[in-house]
């Protein structure tokens, strides 16, 4: 089976695979999103303490999860890219970064909207808020570095290195600001104890999280296709593609 993985690591085969995958993933994201929002805003009960305001949790928590997962995925592709020297890994990392930054920003933004009615303030210097903000800065740093280097090979490899260094630092940053100051409520969902929220709320959140996953996969497939076609535009197989030769004619 191991050989099949490398088969898809070749840009031409992945280009075709991504073309088939992304519309399905996008539809899945939309369907799951509608279901999740419907549960979250129509079915889930009103919270005893926080009233209706808590409903932003259905966007806020999945967005925060996603922003962290995407950074890990970037680090994963970076390690792969630096060790196996595959062309696709760099493109995957590049394609993931804007979505990760978007989710980090969304998480901060919805967090501020949630914090205002609950804590009475838009922003507090709490461990999780601060580390999410720094994660957002790490995404910006990665994108700034890769866009400043013209040579794509060098940009990919330099970006990979900074993504790995950042990934090693994220837990250190998290614990350092945690000891520094903490106000944020405990983790909403934990694997070790039973969840402290209603079943229905949990379902809404899970559906939203899955929807964000599907959205991320869809947009990454779409973006990687653009990157592949841009970088391989001199090759014969790109020239032979119907979408490319059609434009030229």
């Amino acid at each position: 089976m191991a050989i099949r993985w490398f088969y898809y690591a070749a840009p031409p085969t992945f280009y075709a695979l991504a073309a088939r995958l992304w519309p399905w993933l996008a539809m899945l994201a939309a369907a799951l999103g509608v279901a999740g929002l419907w549960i979250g805003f129509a079915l889930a009960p009103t919270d005893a303490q926080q009233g209706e305001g808590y409903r932003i949790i259905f966007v806020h928590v999945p967005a925060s999860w996603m922003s962290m997962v995407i950074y890990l995925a970037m680090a994963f592709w970076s390690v792969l890219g630096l060790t196996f020297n595959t062309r696709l890994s760099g493109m995957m990392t590049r394609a993931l970064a804007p979505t990760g930054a978007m989710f980090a920003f969304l998480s901060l933004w919805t967090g501020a909207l949630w914090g205002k009615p609950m804590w009475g303030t838009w922003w507090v210097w709490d461990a999780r808020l601060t580390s999410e903000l720094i994660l957002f800065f790490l995404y910006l740093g990665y994108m700034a570095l890769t866009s400043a280097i013209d040579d794509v090979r060098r940009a990919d490899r330099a970006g990979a290195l900074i993504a790995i260094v950042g990934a090693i630092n994220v837990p250190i940053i998290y614990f350092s600001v945690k000891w520094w100051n903490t106000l944020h409520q405990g983790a909403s969902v934990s694997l070790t104890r039973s969840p402290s929220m209603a079943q229905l709320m949990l379902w809404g959140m899970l559906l939203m999280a899955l929807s964000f996953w599907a959205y991320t996969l869809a947009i990454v497939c779409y973006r990687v296709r653009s990157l592949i076609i841009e970088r391989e535009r001199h090759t014969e197989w790109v020239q032979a593609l119907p979408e490319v030769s059609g434009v030229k004619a």
Partner: protein
Amino acid sequence: MNIFFTLVQRDLRLAMRRKAEVLNSVFFFVVVATLFPLAIGPEPAMLRQIGPGVLWVGALLATMLGLSRMFEGDYRDGSLEHMLLSPHSLGLMVLGKITAHWLLCGVPLVILAPALGLQFDLSEEALWMLSLSLLLGTPVLSCVGAIGAALTLGVRGGGILISLLVLPLFVPVLVFGAGAVQALESGVGAQAHVSILLAMLLPALFFSPWACSAGLRIALE
């Protein structure tokens, strides 16, 4: 190990021939530290509270000023390429350059900080702790910063790019460095903070030259 000392010596000698560059970042530190009381007001209680943080942020920014010069000169005149091609361990050479950077940018701050701390009305123990925390923290800044310097080598807009890359990574050092002084002042004791600073220094010393060498190889490939 010889190559390490040779490089430290060489970098120090090169810096001594252009003293202004070294002095600039020290002078910058002094000016920044002086601006804060002017902006915030001269109440001693307030100054005592913000002093450690202000001096630490100042030290952080001053260290960063010197970062872009760390490999730039060697890159321009081609000696960096020779270092990469030489049979000696690149990691050791990079560690030498990091050490030289720390001796030139970090140590002056460690020595100057207590004098500037007097402007903020810090107590004697707090001044000692400030120096100690800077002594342990600034090498970490040099180590982490060197990775940023290696990656942005020869890139347009490199100076501002370094700050974007490394400032978020400096956060833990800042938290525990400034926190050490504040913990001492509040009577909690700074031992935990000092231990954590040390715990950050050791892996930084070990991994940074390695990551830096990878960065330099990418830049010069």
